[in-house]
């Protein structure tokens, strides 16, 4: 009864509510985004040039990092993630070297340095984008550390993770991003 008594106020509050919600919808991203804490495992992976790369030195260095999990013969998700990386580097132009892009293979048996090099060439990758593979056990450790582990690689999902140098937090995005979305996330990362 008490609720009904106050119903006459509704016409006054509704417009305000709409304005508030509209503002929030405008500000909130259209994709799933969360802030996480991850511990980078102490593993050494191999990149497209056959160089052994300690993962911690790469991900916890002095540059912002954008990370994804892909594989060379993926049919849908990885090509779109990689087109996103490729265009992102192109947009940054001369500043592309200021951010480290890291793609980690979820099919390490097949993704040899040769396969990874050809893959990056297909996407016109510039300096600063590394594709990493390695021992299956090590790759699984990395996937688990970033809550990205799937038993069957065909069941994987789009995942992009961003990290600012020195930060304890990692931004986790579990959907495919448009160009403006990725750029906005990167700019947000730099502001922090």
């Amino acid at each position, binding site marked *: 009864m008490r609720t009904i008594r106050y119903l006459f106020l509704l016409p006054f509050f509704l417009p305000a509510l709409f304005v508030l919600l509209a503002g929030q919808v405008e500000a909130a991203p259209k994709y799933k985004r969360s802030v996480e804490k991850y511990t980078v495992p102490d593993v050494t992976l*191999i990149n497209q040039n*056959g160089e052994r790369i300690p993962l911690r030195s790469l991900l916890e260095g002095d540059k912002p990092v954008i990370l994804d999990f892909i*594989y*060379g*013969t*993926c*049919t*849908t*998700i990885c*090509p*779109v993630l*990689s*087109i*996103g990386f*490729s*265009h992102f580097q192109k947009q940054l132009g001369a500043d592309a070297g200021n951010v480290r892009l890291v793609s980690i293979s979820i*099919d*390490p*048996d*097949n993704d*040899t*340095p*040769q396969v990874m090099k050809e893959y990056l060439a*297909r*996407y*016109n990758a510039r300096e600063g984008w590394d594709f990493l*593979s*390695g*021992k*299956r056990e090590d790759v699984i450790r990395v996937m688990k550390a970033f809550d990205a582990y*799937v*038993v*069957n*690689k*065909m*069941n*994987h*999902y*789009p995942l992009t993770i961003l990290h600012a140098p020195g930060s304890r937090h990692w931004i986790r995005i579990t959907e*495919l*991003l*448009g*160009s*403006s979305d990725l750029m906005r996330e990167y700019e947000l990362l730099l502001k922090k």
Partner: protein
Amino acid sequence: MKMLLITAACLFLFALSALGDEIMLPAGISDAEALRLGEKMYREGILPSGEPMQAIVMGDIPMDGRMFTCDDCHQRSGLGSVEGTVITWPTNGKELYKPRRKTGAWRPPEGDAEKMDDRRHLPRYWQIEDARPAYTDRSLARVLLTGVDPAGRKLNPVMPLYLLGEEDMSILVHYLKNLSVEPAPGVDDSTIRFATVVAGNVAPEDRQAMLTTLQAHIDAHNSQSRHQERRSASGPFFKTEMYQAYRRLQLDVWELHGPEETWPAQLENYYAQEPVFALVGGLASGSWRPVHEFCEQHKIPAIFPLTGFPVVAESDWYTLYFSKGLYQSGEAAARFLHAREGLADDAQVVIVFRENAESAALRQGFAESWRRFSRPEPQYVPLGPDDRPTGQFWLDIVRTHRPAVLILWLGAEDLGGMDTLAGEEAVPTIFLSSEMLRYSFNSVPEGLRESAYLTYPRNLPETWGKRMLPVSRWLQARDIPVTNLEIQAKMYFLGWMLPGAIGYMRSEFFRDYFLEGFDMMVDQDYAIAVYPRLTFGSGQRYASKGCYIVQLTGGPDPRPVPQSDWVIH
């Protein structure tokens, strides 16, 4: 260029509204030429002009069509794929030009819909309208340009919007309209016909091992443990698609005799007499190349032939091998050595070999990898037919060439006198092939075992027995004599995978789609006894990616001890 494409696409979009439902090919382009050009667009993202296709993906990312082709998602068959959270719908002519039902790609054969009783339908109040009407050329062109389908639904932004002018669009539409329309030969309403090839002088026990194991799997499938044929006629509506897709399997044996040069004609003859849907297994006394090329030419899938000499060609499509065979062992040796600390960039490698198919494959695998690492060309020392290496021969090799690595792609009979090297001041790293030694390691002198490494392309002895046990039991339960357990284990695995790929096709009996069923398989490490694991992926044609490098223990019964992971990068 991009601006031109955008203008052409906009003009074409504007013109679409004035066009009829059918889009004509440009004057002077034949059907066959349009199919060839359309295939290049679909598979490679290249326009008839030779320029890359241009598109927008995810709403605002401009992309070069070569980065992300139509067949990446929709696959070569056009029947689509499911990957994680993204479902890609069929784009083949057969599905596009019919309304899409909610149940998926399947629809009853023509005329069957009227015959079905009520039990075969959803209750009327649950029946849903078609998801979309049939495409026409015009609505297909519109969805490629705008991402809006004939039902007015906006496609997922992962589907690129293509900037195509009228002529290019007509070619792509023509290609899609003709993609996977007629089911492949070798399938009828009741049976899928397979063949297995037995070529040349194959040992009778190997032939028996392969055929009995394959046939046992086929008998199991045909026994219809789920009463598929009965249920396809009377089962409930939600099982109709599954049970109507059921076919019995028939296995033909194609025996090839005489010299290898005559095999292609014999294969053609068998195929003309009774076409098959695909080849499964297969044994050849020499190279598999004639069968491989026959399959490429006719676009016939060949699944897991038993050969140490597969064709290693990254762009070929129709044969799925267990591994690259001896080539892969050569590759593994090169990768292991390259990654080894302390081996100088210009380290001298000497390869001693006899001219035969095994050593040729090993040499090729090693040389191609070694070159990729920008390492200097090895020195080759061939043995003539009458050469019998002695202790002095080995001393001369080491003292003359002073190799850092001595690779012996030789059989056990050629290792006589090797032990004299044990007394040398600087013994090089020695590499051997377990396959060429027939896994009999006593021929490796004990004094050299610290320096000797071997390629070992299968499960290690400590797991071999455990992994083979289920295979032996399975054979025993079917009264199949064990005549070659390795061959039987491989066919056992094939038999377990085959129903998955057949089921994946549902009633869409297209050969490319069948192969895609293998491409999409989960990586396997339980049904395969011979290899630690087999992995799959779109276009991956060698399922085993690994080869251990081992050293031997001392004593009269040496055991291999792994010095590398299964996969060496």
